[in-house]
């Protein structure tokens, strides 16, 4: 049965027992970009029992430089990442149960998904989502593995509710950092370093070898040859609004039904409504204005200097502006 995992079973800290554990576990990966692709592929190759993926985006040409599950054909077909990822992952290992959602990860969308999750891997690309996740994981008592990267640098830290400091303890407030992959770039090895550390800690948790856990925060810079392990035990705060004695979970506020968000560094605005879009009806309306590209999950149209991508779940990306007002105007002209 376990022939395909023989090299991992030979590794003593895993062994037959560890493999039996891995096969019973359910992991949620939030985001199917660079970190999500890498971690998902590792866990699927390792024989994880069940994997749930959630991502709001579709595959674009500039993703291919570092997002290991995707090909030129995915770009051409404008496939949502969560679905393109699932297809490739099942070709790699048909034994793993994979569930994928083309959705924004919000507290509303995650609540129904996380009920039997053993572990969450953070593969998001922004701190707003991470702080929401931090609250949600503390509330539900689920361990999660923070990871982020940009340029040739990255960091990772494993958060156990009730045991370790949480992200709020470590960072105080949501950082206002201009450094995203879309503003200062990234090289693929920085991704893999974070992935390697996230997957290792995930395997330790899945095989229940908790005394091997790293416990320190790592931060590295591959181009400048730095690697540091930081002891952050002291960061735990008893009055933390997320993991302290009287938590208020400040990042779990209700989301309003329509919300706009500037996607940092991408010259793109996301508009989210609570109602699903009927893409067929929209297609027949829009193709009078300009040629549309259309598949089961999304519809894209070039309009003036903008490109709009409408998703079935009610979201629209307006590429070509970082002005919310401008994006709303264009959106209303086409889909209003």
């Amino acid at each position: 049965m376990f022939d395909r995992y023989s090299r991992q079973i030979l590794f003593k800290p895993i062994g037959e027992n560890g493999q039996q554990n891995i096969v019973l576990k359910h992991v949620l990966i939030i985001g199917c970009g660079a970190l999500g692709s890498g971690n998902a592929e590792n866990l699927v190759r390792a024989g994880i029992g069940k994997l749930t993926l959630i991502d709001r985006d579709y595959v674009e040409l500039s993703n291919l430089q570092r997002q290991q599950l995707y090909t030129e054909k995915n770009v051409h077909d404008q496939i949502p990442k969560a679905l393109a990822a699932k297809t490739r992952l099942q070709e790699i290992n048909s034994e793993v149960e994979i569930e994928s959602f083309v959705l924004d990860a919000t507290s509303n969308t995650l609540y129904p998904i996380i009920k039997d999750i053993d572990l969450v891997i953070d593969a998001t690309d922004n701190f707003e989502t991470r702080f929401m996740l931090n609250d949600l994981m503390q509330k539900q008592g689920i361990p999660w593995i923070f990871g982020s990267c940009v340029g040739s640098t990255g960091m990772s830290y494993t958060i156990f509710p009730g045991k370790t400091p949480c992200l709020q303890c470590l960072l105080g407030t949501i950082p206002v950092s201009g450094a995203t992959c879309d503003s200062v770039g990234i090289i693929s090895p920085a991704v893999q370093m974070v992935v390697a550390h996230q997957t290792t800690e995930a395997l330790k948790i899945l095989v229940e070898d908790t005394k091997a856990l790293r416990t320190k925060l790592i931060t590295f810079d591959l181009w400048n040859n730095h690697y540091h392990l930081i002891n952050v035990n002291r960061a735990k705060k008893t009055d933390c609004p997320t993991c302290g004695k009287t938590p208020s979970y400040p990042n779990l506020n209700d989301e309003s039904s329509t919300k706009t968000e500037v996607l940092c560094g991408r010259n793109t605005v996301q508009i989210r409504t609570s109602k699903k879009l009927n893409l067929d009806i929209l297609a027949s309306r829009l193709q009078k204005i300009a040629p549309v590209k259309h598949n089961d999950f999304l519809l894209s149209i070039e309009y003036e200097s903008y490109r709009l991508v409408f998703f079935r779940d009610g979201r629209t990306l307006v590429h070509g502006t970082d002005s919310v007002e401008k994006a709303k105007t264009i959106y209303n002209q086409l889909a209003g």
Partner: protein
Amino acid sequence: MIKVLLFAHLQEKLGKDQLDIETNQIKISELKHKLKDQYYLNELDGVMTAINEEYATDEDVVKSGDTVAFIPPVSGG
């Protein structure tokens, strides 16, 4: 002397990845002030600080021979 390590965009701003500060001891909050004044490193608010690979706060004091690292959180993924 105190050794200061800088990461990510702090590095880029300064043009190098480390600095030596001539002093016997200094509070982290004062060290940040000093670096903001001398090197225009305004990005030092909201970065994580470590003294000799241990998490530190603005109130901690760093002494000659110590290494301070300023680690800005990065958000990509």
